[in-house]
């Protein structure tokens, strides 16, 4: 009771081999495509590496790059095999490699699927990593004279302008941080001294934001300072003012951006998986149909199938093989005694 048995006359075998050759070259291209998607995703993640705390999310592009290369390799092999398949002299040397090939192709599909699943599952980790990274970026915004942190200001400004966002969760994050360095604060002025004394840590906190939070789409020139004070600016109400600054937080903006990328990449990967599965199935049919060919009558019909027996029986066979392999290491004496007993039984019964 073979699984999904099909008849293969000679013409169909030839067509299958030709179709499979074309399909395997398409799959090589798909592998290259997967690799380039991985490279693209990795470059995008590296671009904003300064506002990310850890690199856990990098596992997704790494898997894609590795699997892309493996896919290209195995499908080149499949193309070579089906080029030789119709020649009965050249096909047999490839036969022992086919079983590991099926295993590898199956693993490729599993890994690609896991990459897609991980890209959604790791969203929470990405958000956490961005939360910590952005918090540090905002905290070290003013340290333009500290080596190792001197580019944080430029990074955060560029990020806020490019992604049209402000702060971590929203613009109020800037109120809790001293983002103006002490080098530019006049400590002889009364106002500065009052502000610094007004909080426990001695920080110069203000209800103002950097210029990179400003929204160019606002009809009025940007208001950066005294944002919560309605009387500080003419014709201004801070509760109803929406266009002055960017309303989005940078964490949300970055997560949306990366999820959008992964949503676009997802269908591409799923189509690569289906292409690889079809190459796998076609090669299996080709192999079984060529195995079924009578050597004296090479042009006769033959049968092709996916599994020689049904699924359950194949699983039992595999289990038995596994047990035999495991038992191989056990003491041989038990087997010899059993063989001796069986031999006596056979002798007495006959």
């Amino acid at each position, binding site marked *: 009771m073979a699984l999904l048995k099909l008849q293969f006359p000679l013409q169909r075998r030839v067509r299958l081999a030709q179709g499979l050759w074309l399909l395997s070259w398409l799959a090589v291209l798909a592998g290259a495509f997967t690799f380039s998607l991985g490279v693209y995703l990795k470059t995008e993640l590296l671009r904003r590496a300064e506002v990310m705390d850890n690199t856990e999310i990098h596992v997704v592009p790494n898997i894609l790059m590795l699997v892309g290369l493996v896919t290209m390799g195995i499908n080149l092999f499949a193309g070579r095999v089906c080029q030789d398949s119709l020649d009965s002299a050249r096909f047999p040397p490839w036969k022992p490699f086919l079983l590991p090939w099926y295993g590898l192709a199956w693993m490729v599909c599993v890994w690609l699927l896991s990459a897609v699943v991980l890209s959604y599952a790791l969203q929470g980790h990405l958000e956490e990593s961005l939360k910590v990274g952005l918090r540090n970026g905002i905290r070290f915004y003013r340290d*333009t*004279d500290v080596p190792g942190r*001197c580019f944080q*200001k*430029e990074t955060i*400004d*560029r990020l806020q*302008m490019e992604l049209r966002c402000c702060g971590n969760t929203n613009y109020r994050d800037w109120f809790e941080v001293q*983002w*103006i*360095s002490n*080098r*530019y*604060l*006049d400590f002889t*002025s009364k106002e500065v001294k009052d502000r610094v004394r007004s909080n426990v840590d001695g920080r110069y906190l203000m209800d103002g934001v*950097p*210029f*990179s939070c*400003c929204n*160019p*789409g*606002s*009809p*009025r*020139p*940007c208001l*950066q300072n005294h944002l919560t004070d309605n009387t500080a*600016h*003419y*014709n201004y109400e801070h509760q109803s003012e929406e266009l002055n600054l960017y309303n989005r937080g940078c964490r949300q903006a970055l997560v949306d951006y990366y999820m959008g990328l992964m949503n676009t990449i997802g269908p591409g990967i799923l189509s690569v998986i289906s292409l690889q599965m079809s190459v796998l199935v076609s090669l299996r049919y080709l192999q079984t149909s060529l195995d079924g060919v009578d050597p004296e009558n090479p042009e006769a019909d033959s049968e092709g199938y996916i599994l020689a027996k049904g699924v359950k029986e194949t699983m039992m066979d595999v289990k038995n093989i596994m047990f035999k392999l495991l038992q191989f290491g056990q003491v041989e004496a038990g087997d010899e005694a059993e063989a001796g007993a069986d031999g006596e039984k056979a002798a007495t019964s006959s």
Partner: protein
Amino acid sequence: MAVLKVKFTKTNRDKLAQVLWILNWVSVVTGVILFSLGLFLKVEINKRWELMAERDLHYVPNMLIATGLIACGINFLGGKICYDCADTTKFLRWKLLMLPYVICTFFFTFCILVGALMCYGMRGELEEALDLGLRDAMRYYKDTDTPGRCFLKRTVDLLQIQFQCCGNFGFRDWFQIQWISNRYLDMSRREVVARLRSNVEGKYLMDGVPFSCCNINSPRPCIQHQITNSSAHFNYEYQTEELNLWRKGCRQALLEYYTHIMQSIGFTVLIIWLFELSVLTGVRYLQTSLENVLRQGDPDSESDGWLLENSFVETARSNFNIIKSLGKCNQIDTANNGDPNINVPSTAYYGPDNLPSKQIPMAS
């Protein structure tokens, strides 16, 4: 005295025809490239139409688009002709068309050269358009409530952020215009009224710039207001401060950007022109050698190919005469009082010694 005469054996002619067939198809591709370059330039100019004053800048990309399309058509036809030229019988189909084709292609390649030179020549008009356009855009920066100008603020801000520039020539241009709308000025305050009265036109002028002029590489938070007043900010000296705002003017930034684009496009079009010229030369040689073969009668013999049958001067003179006589087609020749039959010697005259010059053979 033919110009650049070359001998062609039969195999040479066939090979020339095949090579030209391939080159013509490559020229179709270059025609597509020309078309897309024109389209790209058109899109780039349209993207910033708000910042350019009314100048007719579209003639350059339109010319490139038109020449690109014509190039595709001409080279497609040329490919077809060269494909047929390998066979002398098929050449007869195209024999009459080839000379007009060569002449048309010659004038067309001249148009490509004109297109390339226009790319380089457009710079002056672009500079003028940008100068006036930017000045107006800055003047209307505050008019976010006027229909038709309400997006100028956003355009100028995004321009200054993207091109890392400030103002027309520099950031001081912002000191000379009122860029804060009256809607946001508290007219009841004394300072505001004092500022408005301090100049003739009643404009609220200040030594401040919009936020988009801020330089992100500055180590200190951006100073936008009271820029010229060193005492208004701690540890600030206006004369030595370089990193606070963008130093470049937007006119120069945009001009550099567009000049770079147009120089690259002009260079590419020049290369395409040289390529088309070489294809044209090959087609001319093919045409003349095949015509000479037909004149000699033997399709397998050698023949000469040339660019011009006579020297350059004689060809120019004969063409000029042809054009003159074309013009005279409808005119009457006034040299003989309008009568074309005067002074034409009569072949038949009857007189005493009127004997036909030819003896009638006597039947013997």
